């Protein structure tokens, strides 16, 4: 299988989040960036497992500026064969999705994997947009993924349960926890990644349909009310009459 894995850059969870330019821009100063965990742990590792079992190629694709090369090399070190970076800072998921769709149309892939969502904008948007842009079937929130010939079997989350579905490749799959285990790149992988091909392609003219105009920090939580461990009646009465949740 020829598999394309979409990876995005995300701030490490422990990063302090702040904004600059009158709260209109994410302040990247001192922020440590990682491969978005869903893309790395689940989509990429499962793609590598499928390739190890059945042959083929794993290509990673990222829409971003030159600063994204660091996380692309990380994904190559984990084992992807080659990488493509579409050279533009995407303003919204629609733009990024249609950039990737344009590339995927010119290069045949059997399977396209995305993460469930990015942990910075948490939009959960790009996978579905990409599928529709390519007119391919979309299996969202897959927790298991197997391939036999051109038939793809996936377990996906649905409201109130799980479902096993089958679809003919090519298809777009968004990947969630359960699909694979994290892999830590070893020294050999890191060395090999330096010489693996990273192709930079120019971006297409595509509109941004949405704009983040400003950011704010959520309101401060009021101080915690401590309750004596002996007085659970008091807690229950507070939850009922003060918090009004039971």
């Amino acid at each position: 299988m020829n598999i394309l894995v979409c990876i995005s850059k995300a701030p490490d969870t422990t990063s302090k989040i702040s904004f600059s330019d009158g709260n209109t821009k994410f302040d990247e100063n001192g922020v440590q960036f990682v491969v978005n965990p869903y893309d790395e742990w689940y989509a990429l590792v499962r793609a590598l497992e499928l390739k190890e079992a059945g042959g083929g190629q794993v290509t990673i694709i990222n829409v971003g500026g030159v600063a994204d090369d660091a996380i692309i090399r990380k994904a190559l070190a984990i084992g992807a064969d080659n990488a493509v970076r579409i050279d533009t800072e995407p303003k919204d998921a629609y733009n990024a999705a249609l950039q990737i769709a344009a590339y995927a149309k010119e290069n045949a892939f059997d399977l396209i994997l995305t993460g469930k969502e990015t942990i910075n904008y948490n939009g959960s948007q790009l996978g579905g947009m990409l599928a529709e842009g390519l007119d391919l079937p979309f299996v969202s929130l897959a927790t298991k993924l197997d391939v036999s010939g051109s038939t793809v079997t996936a377990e996906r989350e649905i409201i109130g349960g799980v479902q096993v579905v089958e679809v003919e490749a090519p298809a777009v799959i968004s990947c969630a926890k359960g699909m694979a285990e994290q892999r830590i790149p070893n020294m050999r992988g890191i060395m090999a990644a330096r010489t693996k091909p990273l192709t930079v392609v120019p971006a297409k003219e595509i509109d941004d349909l949405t704009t983040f105009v400003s950011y704010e920090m959520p309101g401060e939580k009021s101080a915690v009310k401590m309750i004596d461990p002996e007085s659970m009646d008091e807690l229950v009465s507070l939850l009922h009459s003060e918090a009004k949740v039971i």
Partner: protein
Amino acid sequence: MILVYINSENGISKASYEAITYANKLGDVVALSNGSLPNEELSSMGRYGATKVIVDRAVNGEDQQQLVRMIAEVAASENADTVVFVHDISGKAVAPMLSVRMNAGLVSGAISLPDDSGAIAVNVFSGKAIGNVKVNSASKIISLLPNSLPPEEVGENCSVEEVSTQAGEARIKVLSTKKPEGEIPLPEAELVVSAGRGLKGPENWGMVEELAEKLGAATACSRPVADIGWRPHHEHVGQTGVAIRPNLYIAIGISGAIQHLAGVNGSKVIVVVNTDPEAPFFKAADYGIIGDAFEVVPRLNQAIEKFKAS
């Protein structure tokens, strides 16, 4: 006109009434659904502001692309300029596809109505900040995070109109479906009782399950507890698990690591039980109890029993 898509496969959820209420504040509302839910139940959406409900009985929704075609066709025939979704498992998949089909900007996970400038708030950076998004296109899609506004009854049941759309062939084949009976699905639960490594072993979960049952709550857990197999994986909440926003989240023997908080900090009220007064979770809590779970939880169970009897 505002079109609201409602997934009625499991009946009409509270979040669906929230979406109708939200749409009703933006303009005239038509609700659209599919599948086999009886008309009497579909018509209840009128009470929250829908002027009518349109339903395509032939579309089962298993291939989300069919839903996209159905919604796009009805949006065009009803002249809808905005389509509203519930930001649940269904909406998260369908809204982005519709965005490309209709060339309509998507606000994913909205938590507010548009302000005077048209900007809508969404959670970003795992709930550590809020971003305000503006849509640049003429048509708009908004997918509304559950629990963002209370549903408001404003009228009577409305009429239901059956239609037949060109939803096309399904390319996704469903082999099997599993829905655990009797359990409250975590993403939709309004009350959640959660426990972590502080409970020492899987054999000690009895009191947690009892608490959940007494409250009518769903159960959840921290990641290490799911990883070592004390609890099933679908209970794992946090940055890499399920993100939830219940009305009440009770955290027992969980330290409150940032990756855990990322999945629960949208909860309305948080109660923390922990032996360690320095546990970071107390900073995110509304009510804190410094104490041993093995004493506090049974006492809490008794207190709830007493409260329910009174």
